[in-house]
């Protein structure tokens, strides 16, 4: 009975207050769409960035004529370095085999030749400490590099490039977070404003309800329902639009480009639930704040 009353009151105000309700609904919808694109994209870039970080290695290339004693000494030195997590020996044959795996044609042109050096593949304990491992192995004087062991031919890491990749993805991520926070704030305020306008539109009803002794919650419910409706409707429409976009644009693309499918991202159902919860949370926050502030009971 009461539920019927609350619903009919909420619908009545939504109708009387339709322009601001519609504006709030649209902002919630846009915010939800942005979040719906943003969450899987950050998820994917974070995955990619982590993968790159995980691949941060130091390759210590060895001279073909290094003695077994020199190699053992170098290996011990590496393993005793506290920044080093693992040291893996890659023989000349293994190097050629892995080249074959990656670039079949190039490997074939080599025939029986094997110009590839053996190497120690060093995995750092912390990807940020790659530089320290390299510094411990080489010293540069007058532009000439000298190595701690005569067995070392060259030391390589891909730190420079990976740093760039990490800082770009980081920058994009912060910008998107900023945009998302801004949008969430805007829609919270707009929902709040809608509720404020409906409090104004229903001020006579509120006055009469207070006068005849309606309880505070009885007076609040229609506004709460209105806020929840705006949030839920905005969220549901956004999720439907995202679903359509996914099925018509993203899914066909991901079939032809492995890139899209590669990183592990959030599934659509948990994403939809998360988005709906956020949309309703946004409107609950907006209307809650406004009711507290403007509906003095």
């Amino acid at each position: 009975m009461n539920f019927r009353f609350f619903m009919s009151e909420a619908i009545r105000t939504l109708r009387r207050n339709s322009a601001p309700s519609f504006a709030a609904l649209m902002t919630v919808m846009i915010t939800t769409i942005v979040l719906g694109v943003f969450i899987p994209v950050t998820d994917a870039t974070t995955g990619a960035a982590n993968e790159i970080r995980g691949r941060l290695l130091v390759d210590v290339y060895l001279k073909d004529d290094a003695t077994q004693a020199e190699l053992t000494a170098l290996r011990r030195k590496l393993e005793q370095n506290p920044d080093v997590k693992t040291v893996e020996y890659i023989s000349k044959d293994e190097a050629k085999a892995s080249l074959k795996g990656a670039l079949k044609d190039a490997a074939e042109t080599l025939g029986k030749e094997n110009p590839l050096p053996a190497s120690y593949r060093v995995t750092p304990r912390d990807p940020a400490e790659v530089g320290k491992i390299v510094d411990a192995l080489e010293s540069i004087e007058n532009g000439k590099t000298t190595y701690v062991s005569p067995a070392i031919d060259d030391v390589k890491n891909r730190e420079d490039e990976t740093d760039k990749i990490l800082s770009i993805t980081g920058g994009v991520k912060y910008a998107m977070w900023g945009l998302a926070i801004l949008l969430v704030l805007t829609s919270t305020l707009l929902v709040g404003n809608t509720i404020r306008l409906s409090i104004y539109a229903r001020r006579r009803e509120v006055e009469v309800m207070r006068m005849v002794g309606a309880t505070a919650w009885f007076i609040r419910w229609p506004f709460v329902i209105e806020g929840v409706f705006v949030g839920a409707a905005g969220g549901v429409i956004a999720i439907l639009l995202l679903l359509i976009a996914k099925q018509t644009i993203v899914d066909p693309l991901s079939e032809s480009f492995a890139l899209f499918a590669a990183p592990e991202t959030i599934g659509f159902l948990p994403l939809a639930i998360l988005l709906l919860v956020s949309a309703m949370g946004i409107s609950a926050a907006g209307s809650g704040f406004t009711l507290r502030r403007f509906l003095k009971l």
Partner: protein
Amino acid sequence: MHASSAEHLSEYGSAVVEFDDVTKVYDDGTVGLENATTNIRRGEFVFLVGPTGCGKSTFIRVLMKEFEATRGHIFIAGRDITRLKPDRVPFLRRNIGAVFQDFKLLPNRTVYDNVAYSLLVTGASRSEIREKVPHILRLVGLSTKLHNYPDQLSGGEQQRVSVARAFVNHPPLLICDEPTGNLDPETSLGIMQLIYRINRTGTTVIVATHDQGMVDRMRRRVIELRDGHIVRDEQAAGYTSEFSAVDAQ
């Protein structure tokens, strides 16, 4: 409970409303009511009079707990309402019918729905509403206008709707702030007769008014305020023939 209230109760019989040294100072420092002490007994009809700004509405609004009294205590049926928890205030108001100068009707609802609304929002069942609303509207003489909207009614008829709304639950206390302030003398008389009839059913009635003619005519108890102070509290004796005639009707 307050010590003196028990005394007063025994002294005056059953006090419905008791003001014990009540002061209301508004946020801006204006004194609305100062050291007001009075007692209103069950079934009384009391006029609250005085020049504009003397504190009549303040008296009524602290009584309805629209805001807190700054000092003092107010008892309704022996209960100190200044100590009432906020979530109990609605239940206090359900026992007080209120009528105002500006009617406070909902313009987009019919006469029937305006009265039904106040029952609905206090949790009445549909069958209760179906039973009570036509009955009270017949009592105030509006049974032919159930489906009219407020703007299709005269001022007097609108005030009858608001009296019907205030009395539909038969509260023990009816408070009217300038109920005839917007009405011509003839219509005012009709409204006062209606309020008087309600008083005759045993309901305690407090009416704030500027209408000195009406006060003189009805010869009821008068509490006069001036600058927030109670300056006169007189019990008039006897009925006027005019209102005896109403009784006889």
